[in-house]
């Protein structure tokens, strides 16, 4: 199974970025949980380390299993994932108003995290199998749309707007990358612009408030915009050089909410300044560009599409999370991959990295 050529093609650049980002993330989780206040969270950086190690194991395992084989199971896997989402919907554990978790004995996990990957696999598989003389037609778009809309609706209903949003962007990117005729895509876009106001009515009040707060950031900075405002203060006050490790007052004094999870970038930015944030952005950029390059040089269409979907997924997380902390996108609860504290996110990201390695390693293999 393991070919020598595969080992030669391990993407060290990608791995280097992963280690670099995760290590920096660990330091920041430590800093965010060791302020001047007791937080009862002092052990979290260790847990995060364990999650990363578990993620590495998972990454290696995923990279070993040929993605060609894996994609054959794409549709059954997606079906299973949707079933799990239904189970969550019926019997999941609620935390802070949302049902996202499935509890199995001592373990609990979010099916939405794995479903994302299954959707990528399924859509990639579909566009690999489907081709037509004279280009694809509109009705060829219906199966992939169906593949994404069912999990999208279930996840949005949890409600987990962030993950649903990721799914939406990933699907769009995949359809775009598949070479689908632009004419059809553009008319679809026009249609959705009309549909947008209708979708607005389906948003929950707090979600509407978040969008309004985004569009008008000075709207009620102590109320709905509190998170966003405090986050901007944290980032801005970091200045060019940063306040130094463990010296952030915004995070140290608990002004930042969710400071070790969704808003960890703000903690990081406060302590490391523009020097740190620009360096981290470069690491992330290299990571995703590396992903694009893997897609570009993949040996087949399937690998290219899977890689594109995964890159889209990672990029949406990165850009939306940072965009949220700097006040450019709405406050949707999306973690920063490899950086934010959280097991599910870490494992899902490492699976994606594993798949990217998988595709890269096999670019010269022909079955």
């Amino acid at each position, binding site marked *: 199974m393991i070919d020598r050529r595969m080992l030669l093609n391990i993407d060290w650049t990608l791995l280097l970025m992963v280690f670099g980002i995760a290590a920096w993330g660990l330091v920041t989780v430590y800093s965010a949980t060791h302020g*001047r*206040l007791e937080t*009862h969270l002092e052990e979290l950086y260790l847990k995060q380390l364990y999650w990363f190690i578990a993620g590495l194991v998972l990454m290696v395992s995923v990279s070993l299993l040929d993605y060609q084989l894996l994609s054959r199971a794409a549709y059954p896997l997606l079906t299973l994932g949707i079933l799990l989402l239904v189970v969550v919907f019926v019997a999941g554990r609620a935390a802070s108003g949302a049902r996202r978790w499935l509890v199995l004995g001592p373990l609990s996990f979010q099916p939405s995290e794995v479903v994302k990957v299954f959707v990528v696999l399924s859509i990639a598989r579909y566009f*690999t199998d489907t*081709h037509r003389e004279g280009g694809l037609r509109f009705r060829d778009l219906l199966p992939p749309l169906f593949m994404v809309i069912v999990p999208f609706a279930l996840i949005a209903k949890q409600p987990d707007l962030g993950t649903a949003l990721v799914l939406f962007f990933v699907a769009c*990117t995949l359809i*775009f*990358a*598949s*070479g689908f005729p632009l004419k059809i895509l553009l008319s679809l876009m026009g249609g959705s612009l009309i549909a947008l106001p209708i979708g607005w009515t389906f948003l929950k009040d707090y979600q509407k408030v978040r969008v309004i707060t985004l569009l008008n950031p000075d709207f009620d900075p102590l109320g709905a915009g509190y998170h966003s405002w*405090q986050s*901007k*203060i*944290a*980032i*801005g*006050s*970091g*200045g*060019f050089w940063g306040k130094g490790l463990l010296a952030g*007052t*915004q995070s140290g*004094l*608990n*002004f*930042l*909410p969710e400071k070790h999870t969704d808003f960890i970038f703000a903690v990081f*930015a*406060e302590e490391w*300044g*523009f020097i740190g*944030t*620009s360096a981290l*952005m470069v690491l*992330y*950029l290299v990571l*995703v*560009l590396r992903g*694009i390059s893997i*897609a*570009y040089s*993949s*040996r*087949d*269409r*399937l690998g*290219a*599409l899977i890689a*594109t979907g995964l*890159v*889209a997924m990672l*990029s949406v997380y990165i*850009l939306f999370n*940072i*965009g949220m902390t*700097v*006040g*450019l996108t709405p406050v949707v609860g999306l973690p920063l991959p490899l950086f934010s504290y959280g097991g599910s996110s870490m494992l899902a990201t490492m699976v994606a990295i594993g798949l990217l390695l998988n595709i890269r390693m096999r670019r010269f293999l*022909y*079955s």
Partner: protein
Amino acid sequence: MPQRSHSNPNEETRRRLRLLMAGLVLGFVIMLLRLWYLQVIEGERFAALSENNRIRSIPQRDIRGQIVDRYGKVLVDNRTSFTLSVLPEETPKLDLLIPRLKDQLPIRWDELEPKLKHPYAYRTIQLLKDLTREQVAYVAEHRWDLPGVFLDVEHVRHYMYGELSAHTLGYIGEINEDQLKDAREHGYRMGDYIGQSGVEKLYERELRGLKGAREVEVDAIGRELQLVQEREPGPGMNLVLTLDLGLQQLVEDEMAGQAGAVVVMDPRNGEILAMVSKPSYDPNLFVTGISVTNWMRFLKDPRKPLQNRAIQAQYPPGSTYKIIMAVAGLEEGLITPKTTVHCNGFFPFGNRVFKDWRKGGHGPVNVHSALVQSCDVFFYTLGHRLGIDTIARYAKGFGLGLPSGYDPLEKPGLVPSTAWKRQARGEPWYPGETISAAIGQGYNLVTPMQLLNVISAVANGGVRYRPHIVKRLESPDGKLIQEFGPERLGEVPARPETLRLVQQALFGVVNEPRGTGWRGRHEQVNIGGKTGTVQVISNSPKGDRLPERFRDHGWFVAFAPVENPQLAIVILGEHGGRGGSTYAPIARKIVEHYFKLPPTPPPQSPAVVQRPIVRPPVAATSFVPQPTTAQ
């Protein structure tokens, strides 16, 4: 070998991948530009903001001045009070916390529930105010089991004697929006405590101290982490009252369980020595914010415990009004001391008959014996001849119908006149109404404080002083800042010989065989007084058979010693029956206490022989002839 279409991504996909890459790079560049803007261009502004974020100025309640009685005994002070609060974000599980506190502390969880349900709206939630020593000890002992729960200390007002003198001292409470409008420029802020009634309100400016402030480094949920700077709260001025705690206590005890008011004043200068209004309340209930339950209980109580009856309750003056009638008659020249009216128990007027309180009447009476025996027919006759407007002129001359100037919250009372009736009721004055007005019934209304001023002016020879309760303002270290002496408001329209005659008659009320106030007689001090009865329902039968709320109100006004008055007293008892019989002994006790005489039982029967008044050769008080100016 894979099929051609399965091999390398086709050209179109590659083209689009390049587009995607460009989009990605663009996204990252936008983020970097934004970071550059936030961290470098706006960095200093945000740095300042983050500095403000962590330094918070926490105001501290000022230390209000002490209030002491005329002998320096402390009536109102400050004490430390502990408040128990919880930070929901610091408490892992409120559900676990509640049972731990429930059994030990009387926390109203049901009232707190809405706050606990939405903990984000309330960063800290106050659980219990003003903990007892034991409760503080319990919390301190178990603090490790109570994460997120903490104690706050502050100075709060302490009314040493609870209900004693509550209306006079007043209470403090959180400033309301109306008050804030005017007080903002004086540095008051939302949540400050301010005097809401009594002396606390009258002397708010002086009592109020300097608010302190603690500049502390805080976290987002307001927890204090480190003290950066502190300005200690400063104390306010101390008030020395004219009140005599011992006398006040005596009167409070005498009035226990009743509804009514008693005020004791020095007629020589207007200093209030005791002021009691019953039923009372405990002002300590207000010091950390009164609970809704208690507040509603006060508001709904039909006995109105919050009302200061001495200045805010108005009653018909009853027979005490005969003092003013006698003055008016003598001054107007309608009667002389020798003018006699034959009283056979009733006074026919038009088609009505006005009865005397005494069946069969008093026989021939002059103004002296009419006052002594409180003969109604004499004053019916006099009132009819004076007319209501002349009566009103004299009543106003004695300060009735206007607040006495003690407190802005006073009620003005009512002096009826033809002009008043036309204006207020739109009806003409009926002569028959003058007859009942002549004995202080009908439309007449006075506050106990106003009646006190009447008897005080009679006692001191005709001077109306502004009643006041504050003797001195002192700085926190005891230095005199301001002294409040007597303030003359004017003179009553009566010649000295008229007043002397009235004084002698009032002495007779207490000391003559047929005097109605004989229960107030004292062997060693010459007391003068006048009884009064206010019918709550007309033609009420006498005695205790009537339900309490229909029984008569009783008045007793008194002064002593007659030859050199140092005390003026007014007593009003609601539904207490006849004034003379019930309240004269209280006046007697007040006099006894004031002159430090050994307590003696009140007399069991009227005097058999009249005692002469021994007047000192030169009057110590101002028996200066005053011009009689009719007002």
